[in-house]
């Protein structure tokens, strides 16, 4: 009987090998196998595309022909032995550290490489899947440049908005003062038409002052923010309610606050946020219905990196049509005429900017004639080491001083 050196023909194995070969050749990634001696045993079509060699040119050659010269010693002395002796059987390279390949043309390219090791026939084989990430790196760099450009132009715009609205205040104060003086001295002394003109001028100037005041507040969120520190939101809300005392009493309503947490935030901005939301809740009340406002907080996703507090300010006021839920946060967007409800349409834009600056989101839902609820999240972060108790106390003292007229 003739004994063959080759194993008996196994149709299942042959089919599997053919399938694998097809897949290997189809892949656009470069697939390369080397032996213990770093000699190349497999070099697929993808690898041919990426490196510019034909398989025939590199089979049997050392892997080093595919590496830029400056990486060869390190690869030989460090990376390969470490992987060979390590416990991992597969890993990805190029995620933490830049990896480069060398094309036949001598051109280097950034690569991402996954490697694995297998023991076959008593020997060790290494497989590598190579992706040419030149294009991706180019997009990433372009994206990063675009992002930086956007950030710079945003900062510039913000600065412009701040300077413009700040410098507009003085001349506008003159216009407003003198139209008011005109009204004070001459109202009723000219004719009815003149009185109407004067009133329009006074109202227009006043409204523009309110707009500029609020625009200034909006741009201050970005340009005059303070460092975050621990803030007791319960105390913030209590302070806001004291400040709103007059408006609250006049409305005949009540504001009920549940237990509120301490968060890491810019205290001044958080105060402004609650002030805007609670003042809104009182303002947009239904005629003849005393406003009832609830402030509450809910802890979300405890113990995860996405842990956050969700705050809600809920009222029983006029509400709004659901299709306006996003629009109301856009600057100057209003759902009512100024005759119905006074305002500039900046308040909720300020709220959104404050929340987003703190890494949270803000949204609203409402039902016409029943009420509205404004929700926002604040990430539950640990205090930043740069903020210590002394500076926070100082800041509080400063705020007290600022509030005292």
């Amino acid at each position: 009987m003739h004994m063959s050196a080759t194993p008996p023909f196994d149709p299942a194995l042959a089919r599997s090998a053919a399938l694998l070969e097809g897949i290997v050749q189809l892949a656009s990634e470069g697939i390369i196998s080397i032996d213990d001696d770093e000699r190349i045993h497999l070099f697929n079509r993808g690898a041919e595309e990426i490196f510019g060699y034909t398989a025939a040119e590199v089979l049997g050659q050392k892997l080093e022909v595919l590496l830029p010269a400056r990486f060869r010693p390190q690869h030989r002395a460090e990376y390969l032995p470490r992987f060979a002796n390590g416990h991992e059987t597969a890993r990805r390279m190029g995620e933490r550290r830049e990896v480069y390949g060398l094309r036949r043309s001598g051109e280097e390219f950034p690569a991402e490489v996954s490697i694995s090791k297998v023991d076959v026939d008593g020997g060790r084989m290494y497989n590598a899947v190579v992706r040419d990430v030149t294009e991706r790196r180019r997009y990433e760099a372009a994206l990063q440049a675009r992002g930086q450009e956007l950030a710079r132009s945003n900062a510039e715009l913000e600065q412009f908005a701040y300077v413009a609205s700040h410098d507009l205040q003085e001349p506008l104060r003159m216009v407003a003062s003198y139209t008011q003086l005109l009204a004070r001295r001459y109202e009723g002394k000219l004719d009815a038409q003149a009185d109407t003109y004067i009133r329009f001028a006074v109202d227009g100037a006043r409204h523009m002052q309110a707009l500029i005041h609020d625009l200034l507040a909006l741009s201050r969120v970005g340009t005059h923010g303070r460092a975050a520190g621990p803030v007791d939101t319960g105390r913030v809300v209590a302070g806001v309610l004291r400040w709103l005392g007059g408006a609250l009493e006049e409305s005949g309503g009540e504001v009920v606050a549940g237990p509120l947490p301490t968060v890491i935030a810019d205290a001044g901005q958080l105060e402004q946020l609650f002030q805007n939301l609670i003042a809104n809740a009182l303002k947009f009340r239904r005629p003849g219905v005393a406003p009832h406002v609830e402030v509450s907080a809910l802890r979300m996703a405890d113990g995860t990196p996405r842990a956050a507090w969700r705050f809600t300010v809920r009222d029983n006021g006029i509400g709004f049509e659901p299709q306006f839920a996003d629009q109301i946060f856009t600057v100057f967007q209003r759902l009512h005429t100024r005759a119905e409800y006074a305002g500039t349409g900046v308040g909720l834009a300020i709220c959104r900017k404050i929340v987003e600056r703190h890494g949270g989101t803000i949204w609203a839902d409402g039902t016409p004639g029943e009420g509205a609820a404004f929700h926002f999240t604040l990430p539950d972060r640990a205090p930043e080491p740069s903020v210590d108790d002394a500076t926070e106390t100082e800041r509080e003292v400063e705020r007290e001083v600022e509030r005292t007229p």
Partner: protein
Amino acid sequence: VTPSARRPFDLLIVEDNPGDVELTREALQECAIPLRLWVAHDGIEALAFLRRTDAHADAPRPALVLLDLNLPKLDGRGVLAEAKGDVALRDIPIVVLTSSQAAADLRRVYGLQANCCVAKPVELDRYFATVRAIAEFWLQTAQLPRDE
């Protein structure tokens, strides 16, 4: 008979914006206090007036100074520092009118011994009321050393 019944008070306004000067003048007109108004348009002129130098040799000693902070040549802080550092001038009350409410600015102004610091109200009615309150307090309520 109080001195005010005998002769008008001299009040110095230090302000470079003619619009503001006129508003203050209008506001003071509504007070029933006999006044003579003097205007300095920058900090250097204000000090010349107070020290009666240059063209101001015949200037009266004002009973009250209303001082704006943003002035050409020498700003309000410079005027304060000079006037309050001068033995001959330091008891003239100086009221600073400012549009800044920043704690640091206020602290600085009081540190320079301003007698008081008042924010310029935006609304005209409040502006008039504020100017009147200043005039009534410093000229009629507060006791100040006056030339006999």
